């Protein structure tokens, strides 16, 4: 038995880490005022940090967020795809340009691959009330050459 345990130990020690099946931990982006937002990175290569100030089911316009990650792509061009699901049904999906060659909206546009970025600032969203319920949100950041700069599976619980 001891030998078998040793074999198992050696095997676990030598096993390659990551390997695709390992999921990133679920983080809380905000939890306040009847609203809870949880997210998990769906980029197999890395996790990222994200939080929203002032979380409430009466969502204010022009929210402030904090965001930190390592860029694996240049972001001279950066686009966001958002898909919103409730009870497995697609409610809404839209695409939004964040950085474009002829309109870099944010100061971080144009940063290079390999850079660590930290952004704390407004996101220019409209204000609205979130109806009660549980929602799944899939957010994807990508550029022209690569389908993934960042990816998040989020759950919004509004009670």
């Amino acid at each position, binding site marked *: 038995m001891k030998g078998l345990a*040793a*074999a198992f130990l050696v095997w676990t020690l*030598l096993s*390659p880490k990551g390997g695709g099946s390992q999921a990133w931990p679920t983080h809380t982006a905000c939890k306040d005022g009847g609203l809870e937002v949880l997210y998990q990175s769906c980029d197999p290569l890395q996790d990222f940090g994200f939080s929203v100030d002032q979380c409430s089911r009466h969502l204010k316009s022009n929210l402030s967020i904090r965001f930190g990650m390592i860029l694996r792509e240049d972001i001279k061009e950066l686009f966001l795809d958002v898909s919103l699901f409730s009870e497995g049904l697609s409610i809404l999906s839209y695409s939004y340009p964040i950085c474009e060659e002829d309109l*870099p909206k944010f*100061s971080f546009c144009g*940063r290079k691959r390999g850079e660590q970025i930290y952004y704390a600032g407004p996101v220019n969203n409209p204000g609205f009330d979130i109806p009660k319920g549980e929602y799944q949100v899939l957010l994807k950041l990508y550029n022209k050459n690569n389908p993934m700069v960042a990816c998040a599976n989020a759950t919004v619980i509004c009670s």
Partner: protein
Amino acid sequence: MMAPPVSHFLLVVLFSASCKAIISLDQMCTEKEANKTYNCENLGLREIPDTLPNTTEFLEFGFNFLPTVQNTTFSRLIDLIFLDLTRCQINWIHEDTFQSHHQLNTLVLTGNPLIFMAETSLDGPRSLKHLFLIQTGISNLEFIPEQNLKNLESLYLGSNHISSIKFPENFATQNLKVLDFQNNAIHYLTGKDVSTLEATNLSLNLDGNDIKDVEPGAFHSKVFQSLRFGGTLDLSVILKGLQNSTTQSLWLGTYQDTEKQDLTTATFEGLCEISVESINLQQHHFSPLSSTMFRCFTQLQELDLTAAHLRELPSGIQGMNSLKKLVLNVNHFEQLCQVNAASFPSLTDLYIKGNLNKLSLGAGCLEKLENLQRLDLSHSDIEASDCCNLPLKSLHNLQYLNLSYNMPIGLQSQAFRECPKLEVLDLAFTHLTVSAPQSPFQNLSLLQTLNLSHCLLDTSNQHLLEGLLDLRQLNLQGNHFQDNSISKTNLLQTVSSLEVLILSFCKLLSVDQQAFHSLGKMSHIDLSHNNLTENSINALSHLKGTYLNLAANSIRIIPPDLLPILSQQSTINLSHNPLDCTCSNVHFLTWYKENLQKLEDLEETVCANPPNLRGVKLSEVSLSCGITAVGIFFLVVFLFLFIILLIFSAKFFLRWKYQHI
């Protein structure tokens, strides 16, 4: 008693062996070009793998682990031209690391926590041209070993802790073309700092540096290709500092997340003493925009006021006679006339893309722009029931017009009579209402490119494309045809000079054999994402040497008589079709293997039938559909037995018959 430990030991060896196999598989670099280009990123490597050939020229080695690099690290790969070491946790670059790399042209060290670079660490390359030292913790330009940088063309120093652009005395900057200081802590620029830049025609990027003060005249008699001061709070300080300098383009835009100051007439006073061709002021607020504000813009050729919160441009702007290009994207105009275009008589390019209000075109708002060649009005919520002769009045020199992504637009016959020199017309994703038998594009005899994708066209109108004598490229993607088929008589018959035709996503079920008969000059035809079967291939019989895209259709079996049609084309894409890999398709399968060089997207060209071959690449299928030796043997035996049986039964029958006589 010895046996169990031994077996356990064996087990351990077995386990670890299997794991090693997995690891070595994991560590494989991907080959992008044989013996030349390799990507080894994200593999957690601690050294250059032995599998890389000595001849490697382009190596992407980012996101690995190399705390120390020294002359042994890359010594084997002496042919390196491009080396990317992004985020390899490099702390030390020791002496003579690149001593034997004479060809090295580009070195990327972005995102490494560099502690020290040895004096000779960059010696070796005969002509190191591009050096990336972004976010490497540099606070002083003395940190960069300067000995071997005299050929440097671009130096990227973004996201560091640099507070002065003053280069050390021996640093050779004369060949620099790009110098990037994005997101540093440079708050002051003095004449002394700037004078250390010996390069002419430099592109200097100081975006995100919060520049508080520039010594007036610090850039005196300097010549730049481009200067960027993105996100700077006080523009007047910059403009005063640029006195008596010359620059092709000056980027003074700001961002959503940056603190802003309203721009006033006083802001631009310094501009009178600068020679500049192109200015960008994106996302600024003007307080309010008056005609006097442009007093010092007289020399300007290009002005970009993207997202500048504009509702109108003031009328009576004086002295903007030489402006050639005006960008007014993402503003709040309600009427095209609010641009007051008459102030810019020399304009050749006008962009009003992505307007945030519904833009109404009005009549003759641009009629004073006689030299206008390019006009972009896309994504601007434009709705017009009768376009476009009144709105585009007198634009006789217009060559490029973009009206894509707008609200429904109605077109009558000769809808573009006012712009007879149009060469490119983009109407994609704008619903066009054209009542038959009108020909809206009549008289556009110079038009070469027409994009009508997703325009919800009435394709049964045979006269729709009449008058397009020189049309080379036509995009009809996403339009629908009657009965989902293109018949013998169709709207393409009038565009005989067509070279590129896109008919993807048109829900087509069939194309008549004669449908493309008048199109003899085709070089590119895209029929992908329809429901076409092999019968439609007949329509291409008169075409030779074309690029033919038949991807994502319903092609199953291609009979032998259609193969010559495919053979005479230059490139064919048959991916994502439910192709048959049984013996009934054996002629095509044989042809496919013999013509692999003609075929595109081989990875996605797979069998759908029979079930056991589903998903197998066509290039890997081998069928034997002739009769095998065993088959022949059995057939012969069977025939032999059958003949014997026949003889015996005949004999028996005859005997039986004659017995009764």
